């Protein structure tokens, strides 16, 4: 299955506002953002740092709640979910990849996946099989017993990606996944995300400031500036 999406809106934000109180003043990270992502689409969100990219991803992933506006994923408004349902959404509905990998330093690559599966309710032989499969997909199965400190940045990010897809979520959110990596490694990681998108049909929202990279893998690019979308472009040939 190649890019593009099938036209059905999978993820939608309406008038999304997120304000942060910084001392006496209020900072508006997102300022009435309207965005629609179709099922199976690879969307890149471009923007300089401080443009609200990460905040957007956190809201999409149910890690944060908007000040106002709605996030609708697969027809459900995240704001209407109970804490339990929100946890369930994080468990099954979404996978996160972060710029700093965020692997648990005391756990091996394999264990980092296992602990995620554990919270998601999968363990035992089924869990091990899935973890091995995910590590193989990202190409680090030979490093599965290494701790993050024993892995290169690229390998750590691969493990993090494996963790994000180990439960086969329909939505993958990547927050500057290449920000800490050199050019060549960054390339590999982005192509890996693209491969997952193509093979599994996962809807991907990639946040980055690297325009060139976004253009190579994304079906569509939107620009975020000061918490608003400023025009978009379809990169599908």
């Amino acid at each position, binding site marked *: 299955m190649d890019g593009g999406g099938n036209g059905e809106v999978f993820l939608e934000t309406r008038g999304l506002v997120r304000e942060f109180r910084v001392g006496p003043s209020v900072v508006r990270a997102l300022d009435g953002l309207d965005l629609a992502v179709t099922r199976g689409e690879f969307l890149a969100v471009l923007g300089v740092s401080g443009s609200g990219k990460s905040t957007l991803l956190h809201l999409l992933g149910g*890690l944060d709640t908007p000040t106002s506006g709605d996030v609708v994923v697969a027809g459900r408004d995240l704001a209407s979910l109970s804490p339990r349902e929100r946890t369930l959404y994080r468990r099954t509905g979404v996978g996160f990849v972060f710029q700093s990998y965020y692997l648990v*330093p005391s756990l091996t690559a394999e264990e980092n996946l296992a602990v995620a599966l554990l919270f*998601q309710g999968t*363990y035992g032989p089924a869990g091990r099989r899935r973890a091995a499969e995910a590590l193989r997909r990202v190409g680090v199965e030979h490093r599965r017993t290494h701790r993050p400190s024993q892995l290169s940045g690229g390998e750590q990010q691969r493990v993090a990606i494996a963790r994000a897809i180990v439960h086969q979520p329909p939505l993958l959110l990547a927050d500057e996944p290449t920000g800490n990596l050199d050019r060549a490694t960054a390339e590999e990681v982005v192509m890996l995300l693209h491969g997952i998108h193509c093979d599994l049909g996962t809807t991907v929202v990639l946040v980055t400031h690297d325009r060139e990279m976004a253009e190579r893998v994304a079906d569509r690019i939107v620009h975020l500036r000061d918490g608003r979308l400023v025009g978009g472009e379809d990169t599908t040939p």
Partner: protein
Amino acid sequence: MRLWRLVILALGGLRRTPLRVGLTALGVTIGSGALVSMVAFALGMQQMAEAPFEMLGLLNNIEVSPGEGNNGKTRTLDDAAIDELAALPGVEAAYPHIRAAGVKLFNGEKSASATAVGMATQVPMLGEADQLLLAGHFFDSGEKPEALLSAALLRDLGFESPQQAVGTVLTLKADGLAPTDTETFAYERKDFAITVIGVYGMPRMVPGVGHRGVLVPVGLMKEIPGIRASPAMARLRAGKSATGAGYEKAIVRVEHFADLLPLEERIRAMGFETRTLLERLDKMRTFFVVMDALLAAVGTVALVVAALGVANTLLMSVLERYQEIGIYKAVGASAGDLVALFLAEAGLVGLLGGFGGLLLGWLVAWGLGTAVNLYARSYGVTRTFDVFSFPLWLLAATVAFSVVVSIVAGVYPARRAARLDPIRALRRV
């Protein structure tokens, strides 16, 4: 999440700061060790105080004396009354308790002054008499002129060992005043030939049986001059005939300890006064309950202090693991999962400390117990004391208590971890 998965994850969390976790667990160890050794000490003291009573079966005895029962009736404690008592259901034996101080025992040239005590021959007087018998055997049923000799008399009578005394025939000389029909008393002197069939050693603290005692069958005891003098005098003073006096005291031995109280009630209803060791023991037990509570309170204070250590360690752990907690939340851990995780860590510290406490408590008990026994030996005491008592329930309760106290201490840190905002937790490095 399955419990053991949680435990493995919690162990992983504890593993990363082994020194800190170890020190915290050591705190719990000291707390629970103090608790377990103190309670064990209280229990040991109580057992030591009660053991002789239980061993001798004295708890199954009701002392019956004439006098006012609980309905105003008075009965004379004579042979007929004793037969009646013996016939009560649940009674194993009833016999007059007759003592005569100052009887003389002769083994050829050697002699000793002793207290003669009448025994029922059909049942062993003592619950576990075997433990007390140093040589020989208890009375066979039947009234033969036989005697059990206190070990304290052996030397005076020229015996070198208990075994040597068994089988010898002693002369028991007794004299005293016996009431006649009128208000006069006759002086009597009698000699009895008695065969020693056994020698007993008796802890000094046990009441009722003289330290320098010679136990003879009740039938023989009734023949000893002087035993009726004192009750007869009492009757004369009360303006009654001197003859027909009963005994001052009788022992009713119940078959089952559970029947003791109902039987005591019944005997009182017949018009007798009763006494049991249970009453005395009850007072002693009240004392021990207070002592238990005090010592347990001291131990609990130690454990609570240790619990503060657990809370502190976990709180530090939560602060240090902000990012990890954020990661767990991001990959789908619920607030409940995180609470469970940190409570499991707290519980494991408590478990470790609890078992450590058992070991420590045992070491303390062993050390102090050895010291006490060495001290006692230096004073010539040959018995060994079990100063500490560790019943199984105490061990289980100690471990359970340290786990529970630690888990309670973990509640605040765990809730704090669960309430963390995942975004802020992730950003914090």
